[in-house]
């Protein structure tokens, strides 16, 4: 950009309301229109939410804005002038910056080093950090970020790491800030702080595009909201004049219930009985799980609540056989399975929706049908004499796809990797629900999913309970814990510190237990 055009842009900017406009963007991929005539106008100094389910076209639209894709139709305007963005460098030159969902930071570098990475101020190759430091401190102060530039990234909290990412954008003088699902990794308190930071940025004239599918956050912080559904533009609304229900209706195309419909639990026989279960922590650390005892009866949903990293993962891994226990016993339907193999547990009544669908839940390079029989391929239904019965697998998969509404490009033969996160999770849920089971262990079953999929999975879990399954749910989402469970157990530092009745407790009280500020009577005496 020459000096003259830059000046032009600035003069136009003062009276032109939109800082970035994406007009009638259409982007097609073989067999699918990812963006169909989408228009998004970002005003100067506003927080504009971009709302849509997984696979609605949000990512594609952002990739177009960053020059990763060239749209078939449509144009992008900066301050009213058509610009051409061929790659991310063009986008950066226009002042567009992004805070990614997963941070791009060097752990062993300081905050300052991370911020200047790639644009290091130097003379003749020698770093000149002093200037940069001052600029960072000034920015940090202006926007109330409170970041210590000399701290190592590995030593600061996730929230602070995110602020480092924000500072990276500000340091590069970006005007347009895109936040991609920024709250997914934050604790409730950090989310509140982030909202404050975003408001501050907008007040200073930065324009923010906020990609999310969490309606509460949009209601709390956004000025306007553009909704996409299945690649189509649904509309742009003023947040002040809309409701959560209207937004979710626009997003999903139907009314969504936020409250889980369920009858009171009618617990029966004990299905899972755990006594004094312990799991070793790392070398020199205390037990990751310590003396946990609990039981789950048929027809009830017992939820283990807690802040991430308090032993839930290790507990579930011990329960499902992925790691060894160091003490205690696990009884399933009265039988001691503490030392049994994973396969034994799988075939004797345990279903497991794992926490990490990519790491444990699916073989991503396998097709959907191959994944559907991951624990069952050896059963006589699916093999004969060691040869897989492919027609049976196909029939079975097609049936599951139909019944559980799993959507994918090419049906049963779709590579799992190419499916959207929501549908990958649906596939796992379908697989685990359909296997013969008496106990369902569901770990963060709705992590990263949109409201439609969450509603669906909750319905499935409640349905399973009503058919007499014992459900052990592990969740970090307080809303989910409160609405879905029949009993709540709170885990803190590897121990069960409280048992609560969701109908008789409040989120605040639950929060106190989760933070370790409160413990149930009797434990304190220890």
């Amino acid at each position, binding site marked *: 950009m020459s000096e003259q055009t830059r000046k032009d842009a600035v003069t136009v900017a003062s009276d032109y309301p939109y800082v970035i406009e994406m007009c009638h963007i259409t982007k097609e991929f073989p067999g699918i229109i990812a963006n169909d005539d989408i228009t998004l106008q970002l005003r100067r100094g506003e927080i504009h939410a971009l709302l849509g389910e997984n696979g609605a076209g949000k990512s594609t639209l952002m990739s177009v804005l960053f020059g*990763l894709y060239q749209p078939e139709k449509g144009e992008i305007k900066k301050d009213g002038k058509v610009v051409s963005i061929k790659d991310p460098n063009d986008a950066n030159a226009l002042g567009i910056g992004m805070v990614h969902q*997963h941070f791009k930071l060097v752990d062993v570098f300081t905050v300052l080093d991370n911020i200047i990475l790639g644009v290091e101020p130097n003379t003749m190759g020698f770093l000149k950090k002093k200037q940069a430091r001052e600029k960072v401190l000034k920015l940090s102060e202006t926007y109330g970020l409170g970041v210590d530039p000399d701290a190592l990234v590995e030593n600061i909290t996730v929230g602070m790491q995110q602020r480092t990412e924000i500072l990276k954008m500000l340091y590069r003088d970006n005007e347009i800030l895109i936040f991609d699902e920024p709250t997914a990794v934050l604790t409730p308190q950090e989310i509140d702080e982030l909202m404050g930071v975003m408001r501050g940025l907008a007040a200073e004239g930065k324009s923010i595009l906020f990609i999310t599918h969490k309606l509460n956050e949009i209601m709390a912080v956004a000025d306007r909201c553009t909704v996409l559904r299945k690649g189509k533009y649904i509309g742009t609304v003023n947040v002040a004049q809309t409701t959560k229900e209207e937004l979710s209706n626009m997003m999903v195309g139907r009314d969504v219930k936020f409250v889980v419909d369920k009858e009171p639990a009618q617990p029966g026989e004990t299905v899972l009985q755990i006594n004094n279960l312990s799991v070793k922590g790392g070398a020199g650390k205390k037990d*990751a799980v310590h003396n946990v005892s609990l039981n789950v009866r048929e027809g009830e949903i017992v939820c283990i609540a807690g802040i991430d990293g308090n032993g839930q993962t290790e507990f579930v891994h011990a329960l499902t056989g992925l790691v060894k226990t160091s003490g205690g016993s696990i009884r399933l339907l009265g039988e001691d399975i503490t030392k049994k193999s994973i*396969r034994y547990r799988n075939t004797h009544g345990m279903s497991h929706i794992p926490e990490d669908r990519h790491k*444990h839940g699916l073989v991503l390079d396998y097709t959907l049908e191959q994944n559907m029989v991951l624990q069952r391929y050896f059963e006589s239904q699916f093999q004969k004499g060691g040869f897989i019965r492919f027609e049976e697998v196909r029939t079975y998969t097609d049936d599951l796809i139909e019944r559980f509404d799993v959507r994918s490009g090419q049906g049963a033969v779709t590579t799992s990797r190419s499916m959207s996160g929501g549908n990958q999770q649906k596939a796992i849920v379908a697989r685990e629900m359909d296997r013969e089971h008496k106990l369902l262990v569901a770990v963060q079953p709705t992590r990263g999913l949109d409201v439609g999929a969450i509603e669906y999975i909750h319905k499935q879990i409640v349905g399973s309970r009503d058919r007499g399954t014992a459900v052990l749910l592990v969740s970090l989402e307080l809303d989910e814990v409160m609405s879905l469970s029949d009993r709540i157990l709170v885990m803190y530092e590897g121990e069960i510190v409280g048992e609560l009745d969701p109908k008789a407790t409040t989120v605040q009280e639950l929060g106190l237990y989760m933070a370790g500020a409160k413990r149930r009577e009797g434990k304190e005496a220890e």
Partner: protein
Amino acid sequence: MKNRIKAFFAKEGTKSVLSSLLCIAAGIFVGWLVLLALALFSDKIPVSHAFKGLGIILAGPFASGGSKNIAFVLGDMLFEAAPLMLTGLSVAIAFKTGLFNIGAPGQYLMGAMSSVIVALAIPTTPATAFWVWLLALLVGMISGMLWGMIPGFFKAFLGVNEVIVCIMTNWIAANVVSWVFYNNKQFINAAGGKSAYTLPTTANGVSTPKLGLDKLFPGSNIDIGIFIAIAIAILIFILLNKTTLGYELKACGHNKNAAKYAGMNEKRNIVLSMALAGGLAALGASLYFLNGGAELAWNTYGKLPDTGFNGIPVALLASNNPLGVIFGSGFLRYIDKGGYNLAGFTAYNEYVSDLIIAVIIYFAGFSKLIKDLLSRRKAAKAEKADVAIKADDATQAGKEEDGK
């Protein structure tokens, strides 16, 4: 129509074949550049030989001069393709399970030694010779399986990288073979004052059946080994794609965490996969040395057999597809013969022809890279974004693991 062509080029198989062909073309081109450069800078080699040389390499065994010679070279090419096919399969099946079997040379040596000893040690009559041959073949294969299981055990139960153990077992095998034959001179061919080779197995009347193939390719060493190798390639293809065992092995290779979650015994699968790989490599050696025309240079402590290592480019060229291995090994042997003829019919010496062959093989190793490039071009930047996200996921997962 256009869409059909598009769909054809979007297929994984098409991409694999295309990338392999591109690699071969690139390797031949660079090899030719070397020929040209040598001709330009050497006054002993006329420039015209660079062009002639290219023709000879491309013609492979067919440039051997005279139909008699062509038949003989062609027969040997097929004979030598069999062991390479099997070491290629060995590397490919390990790759499918997520393991890098660089131990094929060692497994190959163990197979060679065991087969030669069995074939020479058991006295035969014409009636029992076939059964001794079969026994020698099986013992060779089994010794390779056991040898391959060693890195498998270390990997599965102690978490030691299989590449390290494979390299160590390669050299252990090389020394074991030398040591065994040094102490068992009865197997050494002392005729004519030379003692570098073992006796041919025909000394005991044992050799792989030829079924008249030697009449088809007179003068060559060809036997039914090539058919056995092709049959085994097809069997491995079926094993990997149609059976529950193949399903398990591939699941472990793609994602061992998910395999564990699903209740598969991933430790057993690692050992099993390495055993299969070892057995295949050893079988290649057994077929080669039980021919009767080939003699084992037993003093191996300083050198590992090329056929073992060349299984790696064969597997890469074939994108680890067992059926592709048939063609990959065939191609390598074809170009080998071209190199041999290059030294025979032009001013280039055999070192240059070895160099050219090495260049072509080296390029064969890039087929995975080319395939990725092809995929990337197709899905353009979609892939890139996707890859970035996946990388994010991976680092995220890594972080979580570190946290624990």
